[in-house]
């Protein structure tokens, strides 16, 4: 079962640079491997990760088969106002997961 881990500071001062960390459990099957009987193991990866803050997209990345299982994505942003970060992972076989976290900016 997919599960997301999120680390967003609960509080920050306006203008602070903050680090956001995410980890999504996912097999990230490349599509290049074969079973013992020679059949290809179908690709099953996360293809896209997006972060929105108060509805506006602030970070997006595309993922490819070379990326390891359980992608750990971390990035920095500037704290401008209090609000809500929303995270979304989309992938093969209709994979879709979301998570969110709030920040209070003084």
């Amino acid at each position: 079962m997919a599960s997301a881990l999120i680390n967003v500071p609960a509080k920050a001062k306006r203008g602070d640079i903050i680090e956001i960390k995410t980890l999504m459990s996912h097999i990230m099957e490349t599509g290049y491997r074969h079973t013992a009987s020679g059949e290809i193991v179908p690709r099953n990866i996360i293809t896209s990760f997006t972060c929105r803050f108060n509805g506006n997209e602030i970070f997006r990345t595309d993922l490819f088969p070379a990326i390891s299982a359980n992608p750990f994505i971390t990035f920095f942003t500037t704290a401008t106002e209090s609000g809500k970060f929303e995270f979304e992972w989309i992938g093969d076989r209709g994979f879709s997961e979301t998570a969110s976290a709030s920040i209070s900016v003084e």
Partner: protein
Amino acid sequence: MVATRLMTRRDVARGIAASAAAALPCPAFAQGTARIVVIGGGFGGASCARALRQLDPKFQVSLIEPNQTFTACPFSNEVIVGMREMPAQQFTYDRIAAAGVAVIAQAAAKVDAQARTVSLADGTSLAYDRLVLSPGIDLRFDALPGYDESASIKMPHGWKAGEQTILLRKQVEAMEDGGTVVIAVPAAPLRCPPAPYERASLIAHYLKTRKPRSKVLILDAKDGFSQQRLFEAAWKELYPGMIERIALSQGGRVTSVETASNTIVTDFGNYVANVASVIPPQKAGRIAELAGAADNTGWCPIDPASFTSKLVPNIHVIGDACIAGQIPKAASAASAQGKACAAAIVAMLSGKTPETPRLSGACYNTVAPGYAFSLSGVYQPKDDQFAEIEGATSPVNAPRDLRQREAEAAESWFRTITVETFG
């Protein structure tokens, strides 16, 4: 010297370091007078020094080791929980000296690979024909923010047996019932890969019998680990609900520690410990780096056929410090490497090609008194690296008497290897 010149030429021709050349026949010289210096008196170095004297009593073998007493790491997890006392872990170098090895109770300060000399802490120097480095590990006190040498007093790693083992034991003994012991495990490579989980098991055993409301939390920078199914089955059977493990993919990688509040920080959480055992990332013992034998990983690349360094001529590296492919960093591996390295040195000094080594190693894990399981392997060089060619692990579903027999086998293994090395 002719041998040196040959190696140099090969280096230039191939654009690689001297090890491959060193593994090939080089002109024999007066073997009887060969001076071999071994740095580090653990299972690797002591076995090697002793084997060299056994193979050729004319060799002048020196063993440089600053500690007068050796404290063994295997079984030291049992000392933490009072199943064993420290003197049972300690051995002297008397018998090694009696075997004709010059035991020099000093630290090596410098290696000059060109002049083929080792400088000692007191300023004297020793010349060698072949140098064996068996320096074990150093803890990387620069790798985990907040975890330096002084932090290791508050949050003992216990990854070099001795004072650290006792510090951790005292903390576990002093902890009140209901507390949490947190064990932080680094990513591979590390000395004795299954030992963090053995430690968790034995601490759980201690807590179950003395402080049953307490817990053990493992914060792990790895997803899978050695003998995982055996450990997890034992935890379920012996310590239900007492041991929790947060793996890498669950956010278990420790990123910093704060000693003042005894807090361990991961990418996704803060954990306040009653007792914290923080095992930091590791590297080859310092002298390996000073000798130029360690690469940018902190470990020492070797030619597996002869343990010769790929970076510096006339130097061999054995034990935890070397990059030995699939061979785990463990006492029995170091001991086997020490003997194989001694045989390779004898061959090389008499102008022969060392025989391809075939090393076997065993690793026992005790999870409760009278309950142990094991892993054993046979390793040989393959594609310039050691590969496991045979391996066996205890069955996951096995009757309790097998675990009992393995616990006895573990004790017997320890007696054998320590007698063989130090007795």
